[in-house]
């Protein structure tokens, strides 16, 4: 037999491959197994596994007869069967423990109960969609029947837990402090007769206020940022409470937010109107017949319009509040006309509008309960024209000791600059 592993040059000089290709006649000497004799394809496999074969050969398959191999085969088979059995056991055990082993044995009647439902309007379990929308639950706290979708927010308020309720509580405390102050003022200053009107509406207002929450997220917040406060159309508000105090209108809490951008002026009392006009534009829109609630510098309306509105409501003595702020801060001089007095009373709040520069205003605001809170809040406004007005206004206001000048002459000049 020609050597297997040596490559040699053929006689003709042709290069011979290293290994002589196997043929079935060319059985390697080590192989004594009869089983591999008939298979030709083995030879290609032998090439691949040559190294392992060499190893195995080293381990000496010699002496390994058929029976041994058979035994090994049987062993392998037994292992496989055992694996399958074990696997099956584990499956059964899990089914038993999870409770679904005997599921196949359900009687057909029960099976019908759990059939898949295919009717319109129902899910596959047969449940109605949206069933819980109209359901009502009884609140365990207040024993009221509440709609299911509103139950969670109601419970939050009812129990007094949750972020919103603490905010509401804090506001109520702040309000009650203010209200106490304002009430005491009222009783001291006004007649008892006058109090009747405000008292009655106070009670009403208090009751109804508890129903409508000014802090509820439903209330429109668009107005909140524009002005210090906004006014609700309903007359049952706590409006009377607010206007009885002078100079304490900087807190916006008692006001309710209005979903529309205007106010119908018919429902407002005189005090409310005055305070409104000191802080808001107030121009009545032709379309909606409502007062504009934007700021005093609202670009939609001219100052002429604002003045007209004020004159219409408050008489000829009414003037745009921006100008008068310079007058107010001068002194508590009450010897002037009635118009001036009334102006002084509610013009304290008008300090809000032009007071962007806190430094110029701190000295001026000493006499008033406002402090610089409102002025600081106004600082966030970035209108340049506003600031220029402030410059001029503070210039005017710095003349403390002078008597208040008639407002008519300087007014046009200021506004001419801006307009």
């Amino acid at each position, binding site marked *: 037999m020609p050597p297997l592993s040596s490559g040699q040059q053929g006689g003709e000089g042709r290069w011979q491959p290293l290994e002589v290709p196997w043929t079935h006649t060319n059985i390697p000497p080590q192989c004594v197994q009869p089983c591999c004799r008939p298979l030709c394809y083995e030879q290609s496999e032998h090439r691949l596994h040559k190294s392992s074969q060499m190893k195995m050969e080293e381990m000496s398959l010699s002496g390994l007869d058929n029976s041994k191999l058979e035994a*090994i085969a049987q062993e392998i088979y037994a292992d*496989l069967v055992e694996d*399958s059995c074990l696997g099956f*056991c584990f499956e059964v055990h899990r089914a*038993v423990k999870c409770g679904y082993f005997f599921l196949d044995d359900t009687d057909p009647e029960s099976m019908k109960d759990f059939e898949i439902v295919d009717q319109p309007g129902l899910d596959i379990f047969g449940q109605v969609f949206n069933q819980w929308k109209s359901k009502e639950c009884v609140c365990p706290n207040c024993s009221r029947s509440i709609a299911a979708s509103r139950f969670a927010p109601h419970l939050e308020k009812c129990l007094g837990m949750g972020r919103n309720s603490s905010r509401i509580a804090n506001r109520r405390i702040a309000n009650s402090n203010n209200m106490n102050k304002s009430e005491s003022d009222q009783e001291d200053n006004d007649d008892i007769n006058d109090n009747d009107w405000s008292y009655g509406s106070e009670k009403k207002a208090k009751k109804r206020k508890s129903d409508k929450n000014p802090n509820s997220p439903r209330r429109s917040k668009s107005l909140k940022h524009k002005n210090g406060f906004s006014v609700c159309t309903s007359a049952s508000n706590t409006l009377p409470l607010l206007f009885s105090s002078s100079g304490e209108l900087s807190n916006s809490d008692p006001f309710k937010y209005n979903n529309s951008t205007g106010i119908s002026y018919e429902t407002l009392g005189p005090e409310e109107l005055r305070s409104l006009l000191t802080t808001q534009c107030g121009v009545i829109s032709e379309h909606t017949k409502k007062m504009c609630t934007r700021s005093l510098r609202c670009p939609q309306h001219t100052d002429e319009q604002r003045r007209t509105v004020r004159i219409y409501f408050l008489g000829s003595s009414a003037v745009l509040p921006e100008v008068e702020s310079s007058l107010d801060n001068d002194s508590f001089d009450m010897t002037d006309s009635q118009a001036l007095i009334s102006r002084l009373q509610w013009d304290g709040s008008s300090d809000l509008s032009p007071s962007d520069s806190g430094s110029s205003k701190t000295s001026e605001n000493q006499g008033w309960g406002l402090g610089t809170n409102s002025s600081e809040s106004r600082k966030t406004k970035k209108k340049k024209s506003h600031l220029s007005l402030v410059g001029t206004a503070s210039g005017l206001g710095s003349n403390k000791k002078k008597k208040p000048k008639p407002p008519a002459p300087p007014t046009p000049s200021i506004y001419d600059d801006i307009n």
Partner: protein
Amino acid sequence: MVVSKMNKDAQMRAAINQKLIETGERERLKELLRAKLIECGWKDQLKAHCKEVIKEKGLEHVTVDDLVAEITPKGRALVPDSVKKELLQRIRTFLAQHASL
């Protein structure tokens, strides 16, 4: 170096097993066996037997060991001959290819 016959056999078996796993033949054989057993109804028979055993023992008190002890011998016995033969044939073929020359 004298290597005892036992050692050689053990080594042999180990080598064969290794080969089985490496080539993936073992997995294939397992899958084949499972498919065949389900096909011939072996699994259903064994499941029925399981149910009896469980009903005997009580559903709550069944353990893996119990199940294994009861079911494995029955399982081994229930394998049909045809399946056995076929599987053995395949194993022999594999051995012939890989283990020996």
